[in-house]
């Protein structure tokens, strides 16, 4: 599926650009590079990439600003590159319109997986009645959730959460995004709701809630629903 897909890399580190360029070429992506934020914004307009990889620590413009500007006219998925300690940066980049992030140092497999998820979103059929994620499936019509062939009884809120997560399977969802989607705008700051319900959900769908396989915590940022 990656055949001929165009990827724009905006990163000031030549080594990272080279690494990404080589690996993405090997996967038959067409790659364009930009070393500064301004150059990246220009190239995004000309090159019209299907996906962008943006480093948050750019020398000229803040990476979050680059995301914000590109988001004004482009719907292409954006994956940002960050370092572990900067959870707030990740959240802000996601709020600015980034689709996902990868923490440096990252494995190429991880990045490829994120890219595939983002690209799939672009071509996904929004009306699919059953969402599956590994051995977990969510039937949107009958409002049924099945794990390993066994139906799980969920409360309406728990169902809403797993539904949103399944609709964004493989992608990170921030605490705020989940709050907004399930509870509405008024509960913007009450992240403990999310934690309590996710804890309950895990107890119902995970074999070992302490070492979850489906609902993965992205520390300090939010959650991600993973297939096994």
């Amino acid at each position, binding site marked *: 599926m990656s055949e001929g897909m165009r990827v724009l890399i905006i990163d000031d580190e030549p080594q990272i650009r080279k690494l990404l360029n080589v690996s993405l070429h090997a996967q038959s992506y067409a790659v364009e590079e930009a070393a500064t934020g301004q150059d990246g914004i220009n190239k995004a307009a000309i090159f019209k990439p299907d996906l962008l990889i943006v480093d948050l620590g750019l020398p000229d413009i803040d990476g979050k600003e680059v995301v914000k500007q590109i988001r004004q006219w482009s719907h292409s998925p954006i994956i940002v590159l960050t370092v572990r300690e900067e959870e707030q940066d990740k959240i802000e980049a996601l709020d600015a319109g980034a689709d996902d992030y990868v923490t440096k140092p990252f494995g190429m497999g991880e990045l490829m997986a994120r890219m595939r998820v983002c690209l799939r979103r672009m071509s996904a059929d929004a009306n699919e009645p059953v969402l599956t994620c590994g051995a977990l499936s969510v039937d949107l019509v009958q409002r049924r959730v099945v794990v390993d062939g066994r139906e799980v009884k969920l409360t309406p809120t728990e169902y809403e959460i797993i539904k949103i997560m399944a609709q964004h399977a493989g992608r990170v969802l921030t605490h705020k995004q989940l709050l907004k989607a399930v509870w509405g705008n008024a509960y913007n700051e009450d992240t403990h709701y999310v934690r309590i319900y996710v*804890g*309950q959900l895990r107890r119902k769908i995970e074999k070992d809630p302490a*070492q979850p396989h489906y609902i993965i915590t992205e520390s300090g940022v939010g959650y991600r629903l993973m297939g096994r």
Partner: protein
Amino acid sequence: MVEERKAEKTVLPVATYNKLYYLGGLVMTLLVTVVSWLGKPQLDLVNISLIYLLPVLLTALWWGRWPSYVTAVLCVMLFDFLFVPPIFTFSVYDIRHIWSFIIFLIVSFLLGGRTELLRQQATIAQQREKSVRALYNFSREIAGVIDLARICQEMARQAGETIGRATLVLCPDAGGKLCITGSHDNELSLSKAEYAAADWSFKNGRVAGCSTKIMSDAENLYVPLTDGSARSGVFGIKIAGQMVSPEERRLIDAWAGLAAMAIERVKLVQQAQKTAVVVESDKLRMALFNSVSHELRTPLAAITGAISTLLDSSIDYSAEARADLLESILYGSTRMERIVTNLLDTARQESGMLKLKNDWCDIEDIVGTALRRIGESRCTHAVLTQIAPGLPLFLGDCVLLEQVLVNLVDNAMKYSPSGTAITIVVEQRDKRITLAVIDQGSGIAAEDTVRIFEKFYRAPQVNKVAGTGLGLSICRGIIEAHNGRIWAENHAAGGAKITFSLPLPDEGKAISFEAGERDE
């Protein structure tokens, strides 16, 4: 300083007698007269004259010498006029009465003078006691204070209240220029003349200003704050031309001495702290060079070696061998990443840049993410979790706590043989949540259970295991920033057990899973 003290005029404050005091004497005399007049049939002349001593004595006791003298004269006159025959005249039949008048007056005068002296001494003793108590209170209050500005302000206030005058304290700033650091009822800026007097006093270590010979035009009296050879500032007292009693001067000197000592102590403490910081950062640098360079070089050597082997095109490695080499590169780089993370965390704690994000945390979630992060290298040990059900959420920084757990598990893996189990136990005890990481290694020597949390400390028997000695000190820093406690002990079944406990929010604020929605 001694000759100046002698040169001072010693003038007692002139006692000012209120007119009311004389009136009081008059009233008492009249009272006594009325009583004597009414009791005249029962009383002898001698008795009456003794009764007349009463107002004289009381006036002396309460109001001082002069009112008592006046009362005495008044008494004699009234006694003569009303009681000594012939009555209603000042003339006297018997000459012996004249003698008794004279004796009465002499006794009254002696009594008045003596009583006032006693009264004065009592007042002075009281004042002294009050000022000694104030000095004592001040010294006790500032004993624990190491803030210079606060000491100066307290000193100005308390000394000012005790002495009963406006005061100020001047200390030299970084450039050696005197600045007002404490003030009580006094101006907050000094005129040129005032400043010159203060400066002279500071530079020469002698008193100057009002009531001395040097720069006596100044409004204030300036006493240098000296403790041995060190000069720490100047104490200024607003005199404005009034007299200063030796008693007051002694008091001022006592305050100045005490303040000098307090300021000197603060300076010494600050100096000691500075030295400690320098020593500490020196130690840190040395340790960084010694342990970290070694720590970073080992995985780096493995990585470089593996890569150069793979790049060597002359040998065709089997797929298995290549995979082995690549795995060692991956292991080496994750190792390096962990070291760099710990170094950054230490630097952050050192520089006070560690900021806690206060968010609701689910301990089970933290365990899950930490184990996920440890991930790949975990195959050497089995990690078991025992998490009590229904634990409440608590406020903390999830990411930092996750780092604590990663370090603890990483540690347990390093110091226990491969193939053994590592157990994580989470439970609630009273109003705290505790998490313990238990391994099946050789345990910790009793004398090391506290020291292993120190920066760069590595237990002697574990020196063959690679490590920077930073992991546990970071854990302690993070846990203590959460108002928590972390400690190490040996598990009953052998192996080390490191536990941390964090306070849970109060009953009302705690959110437990029961607060969630019930199942339908």
